[in-house]
């Protein structure tokens, strides 16, 4: 006991000596700032921190509802460390997604080109902006964005993450044609948004970064992973028909559909590789796609493989919405391929225009593709307009 006591006394003495000598040897300079969250009202207040580094988080944390099949087969979803999912943030993001105040003339919300009933794409080939301008690409559907492990968004990959993506349309002249200062001022002037931002982010001073963070949180909750085919893969053999199962085999057969090299499989339930390919649509390009972003001519004509989930709701198809039906899409790959310099070698039957899938297999392939659609996704009450 004595020894222990002595040690304690000694330790205190030694520590104080060391501390004293440390501070005296500092030549009076300021100690290094300890970075962290300095707001006592935040979730992650750090009482040791002497300088705030913008890491404070507010609101009630909530996990994404991960479909069983994703949990079984895929890495964890990507959620930025500086934008945790919270109940308040998601609710705010949902409200903003349906908020026309974000547009230049207060008439158009994200949801006006990304309809829940269409798996958050636009049933029109091209969307119309607030000034009547017409785009040149079909709006991308929005779901499973937290599982885009390449983190390249849009058909041409120009956005680096979901937040970055959400910056774009508000200020795009042919879309919502606003400025961020103006959009933020419109929200700030309302009686409701300052409070909602305070609940989600601990400040009632709105800025564009917080707007896109909230929208991104909402978009990450748009998860689709419980189609009939998912149920089949999880063991319900009655969930699909014999025709749909044959269609899956056509999809997986290198001699027939050979769709799986780009569009996922029973092992990749995203049903996309999230990578960019030239799939033989044109001999020359009106739209260079990925090539516009990278500046590399070898990327001209490449566009991101879209997921095959929810095709029942997301027509028209392809980056430019040129095909109104799945029959046209399948016929393209079966007979309609045309050569261009950057065509993906996976379009291997290009010399014959495609794989020439027989009519029965085509019908079954279409049936299989539709078994990847999930009606509940389009009607989920959590995803609808809250305003």
């Amino acid at each position, binding site marked *: 006991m004595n020894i222990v006591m002595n040690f304690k006394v000694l330790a205190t003495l030694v520590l104080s000596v060391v501390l004293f000598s440390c501070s005296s040897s500092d030549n009076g300079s300021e100690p290094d700032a300890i970075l962290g969250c300095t707001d006592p009202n935040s979730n992650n207040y750090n009482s040791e921190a002497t300088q705030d580094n913008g890491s404070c988080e507010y609101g009630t944390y909530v996990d994404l509802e991960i479909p069983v099949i994703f949990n079984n087969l895929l890495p964890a979803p990507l959620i930025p460390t500086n934008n945790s999912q919270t109940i308040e943030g998601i609710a705010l993001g949902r409200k903003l997604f349906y908020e026309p105040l974000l547009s230049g003339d207060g008439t158009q919300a994200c949801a006006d080109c990304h309809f829940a009933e269409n798996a958050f794409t636009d049933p029109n080939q091209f969307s119309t902006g607030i000034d009547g301008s017409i785009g040149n690409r079909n709006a991308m559907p929005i779901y499973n964005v937290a*599982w885009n492990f390449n983190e390249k968004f849009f058909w041409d990959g120009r956005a680096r993450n979901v937040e970055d993506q959400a910056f774009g349309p508000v200020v795009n002249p042919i879309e919502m044609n606003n400025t961020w200062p103006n959009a933020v001022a419109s929200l700030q002037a309302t009686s409701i948004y300052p409070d909602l931002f305070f609940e989600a982010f601990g400040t009632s001073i709105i800025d564009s970064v917080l707007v896109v963070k909230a929208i991104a949180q909402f978009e990450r909750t748009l998860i689709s992973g419980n189609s009939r085919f998912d149920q089949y893969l999880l063991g319900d053999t009655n969930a699909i028909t014999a025709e749909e199962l044959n269609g899956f085999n056509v999809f997986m057969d290198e001699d027939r559909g050979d769709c799986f090299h780009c569009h996922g499989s029973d092992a990749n339930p995203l049903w996309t590789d999230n990578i960019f390919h030239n799939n033989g649509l044109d001999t020359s390009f009106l739209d260079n796609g990925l090539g516009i972003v990278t500046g590399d001519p070898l990327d001209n004509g490449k566009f991101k493989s879209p997921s095959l989930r929810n095709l029942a709701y997301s027509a028209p198809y392809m980056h430019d919405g040129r095909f109104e039906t799945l029959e046209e899409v399948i016929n393209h790959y079966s007979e309609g391929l045309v050569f261009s310099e950057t065509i993906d070698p996976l379009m291997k039957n290009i010399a014959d225009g495609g794989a020439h899938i027989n009519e029965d297999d085509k019908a079954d392939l279409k049936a299989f593709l539709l078994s990847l659609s999930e009606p509940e996704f389009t009607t989920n009450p959590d995803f609808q307009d809250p305003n």
Partner: protein
Amino acid sequence: MKKIALLLILAIAFVGCDNDDDTPDPILGCTDENSENYDPNATQDDDSCTYPIEININLSQNWDGTNITLADIGTTEFTNEHGEVLTIARLRYLISKVILHDSEGNEEEIEGYKLADLSDENSLVFTSNAVLPSGTYTRISFVYGFNEEDNITEAYPDLNAATWNWPGMLGGGYHFLQFDGTFKDPNGDSQPFNYHNGTAKISDGVFEQNFITVDVEGLSIDSNSTIDIKMNVAEWFKNPNTWDLNTLSGSLMGNYDAQIMMNQNGQNVFSIDAN
């Protein structure tokens, strides 16, 4: 600072002891806490300390000795053994079960596997600064693809997300190689090829393992060695099977003979540089 305090206390305590007792016999051993055989009881260092070594393992590709990098994708023309002029659009392959062996028969496995992608330089680093027990390693073995034990359908989430799976109807598991490109046919027209390798299907439901174990001896790997696992891409077309892309360009995954020919040619594809 706590450590300094403790050391001070310990020093004082020891001094206290010394005053009371005769000088004890020193306890010999390794006294360096940073060594792998640090002996906390040792009072006198006996030069026995040994230290873990750090190694790097990289993956690279070449065409008969000329380095291939992502800058060659889609641009550089190569001529294969059979005479076809080709360009590479995509080159991905799987390396697993890397084991270093020392001269006494000890084995150290580098955990994990790597899906190498010519278009992504980061994917060509198998491991950097891997720490191994001290010693000189003279032999490296690794598996191209997955061996039977590891080639488990749907088992690897990152490979699933990379759409790297091998269809169940062809035996399942994962691709070993995805080598896509374009070659000139006898008319001078560009034609695609898809040289994909994985489990070989003999008949419906009957499959044959098709991975390759590469084993290289006579190496001298110690601390700070960099090991380069090199793929000579030209060899896929060369020996013993001179590959004719005009007859074997696509739909090769379910072609048993093509799969086995790839395995045979693959025996000569890999080599190791260690320095």
